[in-house]
């Protein structure tokens, strides 16, 4: 026990003194939370800017713009009348702009006085169909034109659509969903990259050989690595969650299962890292391969975005990535409070962790051949 404790303390000191280790474990997750929080925490409350060229000086174009303003989705800006709207869009690199023709009010009034008339009352929404701003503007315009149609035709709206939260028991925001992803990501990067480079460095610099000259056994060293990563990552999780809660008012919960996921995640990714660091003899190649595995896994395992939003083939790929089960499990316990589902994800992780860790421990040797 004394040997393990001493190794934990001294290896912990070395870890904290290495700027790369400290950055990726303690600073990087906080930076991610702050960055993504700044981008996504106010999603839904921001309006988009919509440029409008209004050639109509009648009352109905004013009514339309007033209704659009009231939606709160768009913030109207005027395009001067002499400008050619197409040129203006190109010059200003606009993704969306609204054109109200000169006869807009006149035609509406004509149809009101003579109901048998069928005159063109057309609004044109110019822009890039693939941009999210265009879609938002289109939604606002559809809503405003519907309201005008009801009012002008004297009809009554009979069906209403109401939005309601689908997240059980509490209301959650994007950042709550994002937080477990960052925790999963940090567990993966710290242990996978850490163990790969550590094993490679220990072998190339003769540290394994040096440790083999003491009475510290390989199994004691493995226990020590497990404890170091678990402790350091626990600190990282507490800091990350604290930033999320105090800065962005997140409501994700730290449960005892989070600690279990942390421990099993450390075991799993340390096992993979150890395997890479052991099997691949060249340290630089080992680290490069860890990066090649780790970086795509970050994105494909739903650390930043929901897997459900991925194309079907990528969703299939995600099912084969261990980080998917860590992210899902953490969300189950931290957001949805779904212990049963969390334990299911944990069971998958335990199986993968045991396979990799046992295999890596068997293959790793401190002795020379």
């Amino acid at each position: 026990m004394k040997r393990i404790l001493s190794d934990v303390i001294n290896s912990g000191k070395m870890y904290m003194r290495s700027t790369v280790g400290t950055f990726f474990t303690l600073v990087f997750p906080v930076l991610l939370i702050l960055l993504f929080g700044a981008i996504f925490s106010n999603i839904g409350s921001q309006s988009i800017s919509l440029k409008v060229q209004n050639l109509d000086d009648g009352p109905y174009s004013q009514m339309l713009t007033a209704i659009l303003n009231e939606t709160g989705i768009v913030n109207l800006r005027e395009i001067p009348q002499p400008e050619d709207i197409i040129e203006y869009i190109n010059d200003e690199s606009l993704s969306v702009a609204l054109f109200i023709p000169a006869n807009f009010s006149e035609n509406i009034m004509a149809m009101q006085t003579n109901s048998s008339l069928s005159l063109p009352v057309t609004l044109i929404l110019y822009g890039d169909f693939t941009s999210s701003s265009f879609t938002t503007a289109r939604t606002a315009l559809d809503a405003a034109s519907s309201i005008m149609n009801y009012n002008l035709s004297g009809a009554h709206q009979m069906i209403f659509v109401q939005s309601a939260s689908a997240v059980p028991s509490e209301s959650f925001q994007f950042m709550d969903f994002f937080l477990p992803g960052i925790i999963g990501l940090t567990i993966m990067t710290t242990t996978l990259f850490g163990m790969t480079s550590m094993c490679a460095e220990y072998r190339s610099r003769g540290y394994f050989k040096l440790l083999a000259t003491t009475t510290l056994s390989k199994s004691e060293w493995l226990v020590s690595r497990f404890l170091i990563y678990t402790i350091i990552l626990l600190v990282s999780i507490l800091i990350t969650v604290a930033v999320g809660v105090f800065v962005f008012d997140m409501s994700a919960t730290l449960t005892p299962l989070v600690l279990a996921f942390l421990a099993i995640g450390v075991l799993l990714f340390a096992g993979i890292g150890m395997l890479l660091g052991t099997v691949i003899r060249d340290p630089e190649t080992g680290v490069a391969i860890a990066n090649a595995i780790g970086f795509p896994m970050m994105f494909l395992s739903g650390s930043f975005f929901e897997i459900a939003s991925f194309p079907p083939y990528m969703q299939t790929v995600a099912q084969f990535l261990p980080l998917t089960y860590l992210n899902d499990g953490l969300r189950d316990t931290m957001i949805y409070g779904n212990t049963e589902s969390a334990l299911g994800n944990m069971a998958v992780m335990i199986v993968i962790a045991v396979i990799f860790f046992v295999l890596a421990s068997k293959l790793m040797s401190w002795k020379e051949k």
Partner: protein
Amino acid sequence: MSGNSNGYAVEVERLAKHYPPDIRAVDDISFEIKRGIVFSMLGPNGAGKTTTVEILEGLRSPTSGKVSVMGENILKSCSKIRKKVGILPQDFEPFDLLKPVEAVTYWANLFSIDISRKEVNRRIGEVNLTDRKNVMAKKLSGGEKRKLGIAMALVNDPELLFLDEPTTGLDPKARRDIWRLIEDVGRRGSTVLLTTHYLDEAEKLSDDVAIMHKGKIIAQGTPEDLVAEYGKSTVIVLVGAGRKGLDEVRAFGVQATELDGDVLISCKTRAEMRSCFEKLASLEAPIRDIYTKRETLEDVFLNLIGQKMENGVLQE
């Protein structure tokens, strides 16, 4: 092979280490090291010194043969042996981000030894690192790193200390500092097994020397015995005589070799030496100086291997 009570720290019998397809890194060697002496394994790079020592340290498995360290079979009682030996591996590198005080404490704890700060300071003082004890290891010089390695290797007061090329790559002052430390350890009664390719180091420090070449021990004994057995007594050195001088000397019917522009004539007896000097009186080749020297391990090595060694590499 006997038990604990005999006078040998190391007993090796027919030890071999082979690598496929047909590399014989260690080729059927046998030797013993008496307790309390400094024993050197001397040889060029690739001679099999480190492989042999790593087998004795339990860091490498032998292909065949018997190895006993401090009376214990290395294959069966490695963990027991660990407590009794200290090891400074070849190309030792300390942990960069630990200070010497931390490294020595850490190492003591890895042997389950409780060590006080005072004791740590004493051990660091022994290797003359007191002024550098709180400096991060990555900032230590090459010599200071080796000194720290020796302090770590001594932390369990080992009965047997393995030092695998402890002075390779160090400047002369750092080498002399390490030599002094090795002498101190020897004086305390510990056995030291030193591998080196520095002939002067082996000659200065060792009670016993084994010369290894191509996986075999080709000579073993005290430096004095080796010089007596394999040396040629006295050498006449004709400084700067060069190739012309060598040809002239050989024309006199005298055996001689050329080394770095000097001509060397080995004489086994006084009569032989007198005869040589008489012949050299008519030498026409220009020489800068002439002197005689007693043979050293360097000459023994040259006589045995037929090649000179510099920094572990045999010279053509």
